[in-house]
């Protein structure tokens, strides 16, 4: 009797699973504390209770997902996680936007799950067991065609959940609609579980059998990183900006994973382990700072009631804590030393360069290009978060709501403070964390953990130096005298929020630089009193979402046109329907000769 679920191998607690479990719990704890204050006045009673219980169940489902050792149970938990997150996106069920976003999310991830199910059952046909080791053994004897198919199925299935371009469509809709601590969990952890699945099933079950698998993943990583950050730079809704930034970071992590796959295939397990360490480090970092940034965004939303950057501004005076934590998160994600983003991107570049030196010919060139892409992404990320922080928190408020903002309650500040501390610690304790992650990556790549030499310089010294010099400059420069004067406003009588840079204006140079991809267009309209007097002038600028318009809308149009064509058969006449039955019967009777 072949058991579908073997109790003995139901739970796998290898280093890789433990690493993910840690990440999940690390983000979940502050998010839960944060939610105590966040949900409080808006929801109460039964709604509050169900939301909190669903959140806990969601966290448990993610935790369970990373420790199961049985593919069938994995699928079940995967679906459970999807459904629970769907419910959580729908928390604000009265808004149409939330319902639409949730529907898009559930449809897209279900399509992804269909691919996963197909892949897992295809392996099951060969292995006869859902235990991961047995499946791994069965994969070694498969035909190359089948393995390639399986790889694609896993890539599409997990890629949909992770938000890899062009399967990222649901992400910028679903993340802004969920309550902020849920966005923090979804963006920080849930989309990472897809990467967990990808590594688990492609590295450990399927085994990397072709070089182009790695190249595909690497290329998708580069594309996701660049496109994600360009869209983030264009967006003026804070949480959607963060969601696009998640696409970018998933791209960076995928880049590391792809590099590890290439190096594994080229028989360089040590370097592959380094690349994977970098990827895992960035995964951890992104979970922490993106979690933090979403919590801060939630705090801004709660304090002002809006997330539209054009209506924010000046919040640093009314919400100093939130502003400080957002700054830490923004610096982390922009990879400024000594914070955590710097360590992982540094490692990623190290892995690319060392890899580029060790592999011959064209792949080396390709890795160099990937390094250039990371550099470009890093620059754009910095610009994006200068915009996000500057427009939201600095200068004068752009609206009444922003002027009347209130700081978040204590529980929410605690949640943000916890993650901000983690951002700093993961940067300063780089070598220690590196060693732990190197063990994890080594166990996956079946290699000795890469030496800590790749991270020799101690960031603590750097931090102390930076802090010290900053304090010193502050002390010597404006310690004595502060002069208060009017800002010169180019001759205008007074400066107000209308004089400030807007988010759209800030990103305009990038809109022009990437116009080949963003396809911006504008609408201008003059409102005239008479022929001679223009009363007001309307100027609107848009960018074209090419994936939505040329890929998804085109596909949808095809389906709808097909449906309209077949709708003609449904004329509403009972006689016509009956004649279909007759025609079918006659056809079957005729076909009996053929078979």
């Amino acid at each position, binding site marked *: 009797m072949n058991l579908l679920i073997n109790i003995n191998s139901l739970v796998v607690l290898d280093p890789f699973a433990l690493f993910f479990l840690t990440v999940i719990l690390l983000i979940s704890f502050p998010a839960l504390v944060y939610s105590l204050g966040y949900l409080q006045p808006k929801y109460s009673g039964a709604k509050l209770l169900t939301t909190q219980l669903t959140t806990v169940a969601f966290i448990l489902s993610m935790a369970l997902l990373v420790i199961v050792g049985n593919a069938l149970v994995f699928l079940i938990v995967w679906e459970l996680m999807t459904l629970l997150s769907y419910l959580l996106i729908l928390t604000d069920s009265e808004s149409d936007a939330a319902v639409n976003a949730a529907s898009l999310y559930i449809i897209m991830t279900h399509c992804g799950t269909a691919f996963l199910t197909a892949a897992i059952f295809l392996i099951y046909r060969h292995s006869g067991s859902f235990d991961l080791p047995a499946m791994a053994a069965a994969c070694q004897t498969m035909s190359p065609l089948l393995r390639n198919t399986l790889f694609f199925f896993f890539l599409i299935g997990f890629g949909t959940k992770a938000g890899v371009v062009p399967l990222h469509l649901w992400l910028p809709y679903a993340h802004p609609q969920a309550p902020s601590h849920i966005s923090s969990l979804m963006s920080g952890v849930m989309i990472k579980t897809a990467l967990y699945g990808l590594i688990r099933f492609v590295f450990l079950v399927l085994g990397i059998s072709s070089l182009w698998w790695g190249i595909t993943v690497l290329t998708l990583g580069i594309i996701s990183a660049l496109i994600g950050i360009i869209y983030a730079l264009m967006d003026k809704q804070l949480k959607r900006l963060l969601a696009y930034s998640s696409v970018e970071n998933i791209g960076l992590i995928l880049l590391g994973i792809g590099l590890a796959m290439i190096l594994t295939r080229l028989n360089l397990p040590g370097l592959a382990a380094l690349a994977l360490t970098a990827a895992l480090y960035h995964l951890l970092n992104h979970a922490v700072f993106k979690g933090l940034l979403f919590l801060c965004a939630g705090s801004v939303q709660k304090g002002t009631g809006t997330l539209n950057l054009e209506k924010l501004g000046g919040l640093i005076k009314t919400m100093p804590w939130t502003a400080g934590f957002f700054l830490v998160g923004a610096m982390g994600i922009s990879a400024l030393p000594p914070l955590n983003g710097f360590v992982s991107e540094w490692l990623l570049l190290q892995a690319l360069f060392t890899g580029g030196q060790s592999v011959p010919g064209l792949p080396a060139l390709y890795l160099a290009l990937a390094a250039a892409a990371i550099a470009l992404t890093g620059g754009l990320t910095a610009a994006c978060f200068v915009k996000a922080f500057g427009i939201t928190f600095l200068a004068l408020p752009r609206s009444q709501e922003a002027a009347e903002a209130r700081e978040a309650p204590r529980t929410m500040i605690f949640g943000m403070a916890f993650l901000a501390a983690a951002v700093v610690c993961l940067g300063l304790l780089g070598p220690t964390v590196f060693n732990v992650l190197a063990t994890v990556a080594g166990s996956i790549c079946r290699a000795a953990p890469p030496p800590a030499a790749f991270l020799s310089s101690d960031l603590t010294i750097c931090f102390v130096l930076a802090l010290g010099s900053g304090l010193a400059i502050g002390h010597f420069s404006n310690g004595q005298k502060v002069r208060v004067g009017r800002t010169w406003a180019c001759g205008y009588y007074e400066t107000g929020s209308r004089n400030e840079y807007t988010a759209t204006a800030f990103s305009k140079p990038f809109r022009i630089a990437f116009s080949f991809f963003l396809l911006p267009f504008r609408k201008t309209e003059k409102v005239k009193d008479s022929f001679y007097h223009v009363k007001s002038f309307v100027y609107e600028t848009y960018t074209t979402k090419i994936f939505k318009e040329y890929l998804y809308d085109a596909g949808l149009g095809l389906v709808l046109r097909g449906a309209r064509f077949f709708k003609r058969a*449904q*004329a*509403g*006449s*009972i*006689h016509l329907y*009956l*004649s279909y*039955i*007759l025609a079918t*019967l*006659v056809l079957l*009777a*005729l076909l*009996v*000769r053929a078979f």
Partner: protein
Amino acid sequence: MAWLLLFAILLITTETALVSRFPALLRNFRYQSLCLALLTLLAAEREASPELYVIAGLLFGLKVLLIPHLFDVLIKRIGASEQVGLFLNTQVSLLLAGALGLLAWAFAGALIAAPAYLTQATLGIACYITLTGILLMVTRVKALAQVIGLLLTENGVFLAATIIPGGMPFFVEIALFFDILVSVMIFGLFIYRINAIFTHIDVSKLAGLKG
């Protein structure tokens, strides 16, 4: 004797393509059901099976007496015209029925091996009844014709079931009879309601109802 009854069924079925009034159509159905009941009685005698006697009795009671009677009442109650309403005239209907008969015969020939002529004929005629029943539903305008067409189709299926060695399980047969009875009652009710609301039972005019 079986051959005679089968031939009678064949004739009656062919005649349904020709009739254009409800009482005639109903009479056709009644005679066809009577032949079926007799066939079943023959089989019951041959196999000495008490269950088949019960089935023959039920067939007689339901399809020869009760259901036609219900329809008689319904036709009188509605007081509508007795015309069935033809999409295709009787000559073309007859030609089509003939074509379906040939098809049914070829179909039975393809399924049943050569020496079992009686089985082949039974299956062929069963298919013929089924197809003609549907043809009736397609080419006749008024709702009652659709219901009677469905009942004819069911007769065909019943006849086809008799050639399965041992027949269908007893309970399935009984359940089928009750299904038919219930559906006739529901159809009758519907037709009555349709007539009450729209003052006609012309199915072709119902297309305007679609959403």
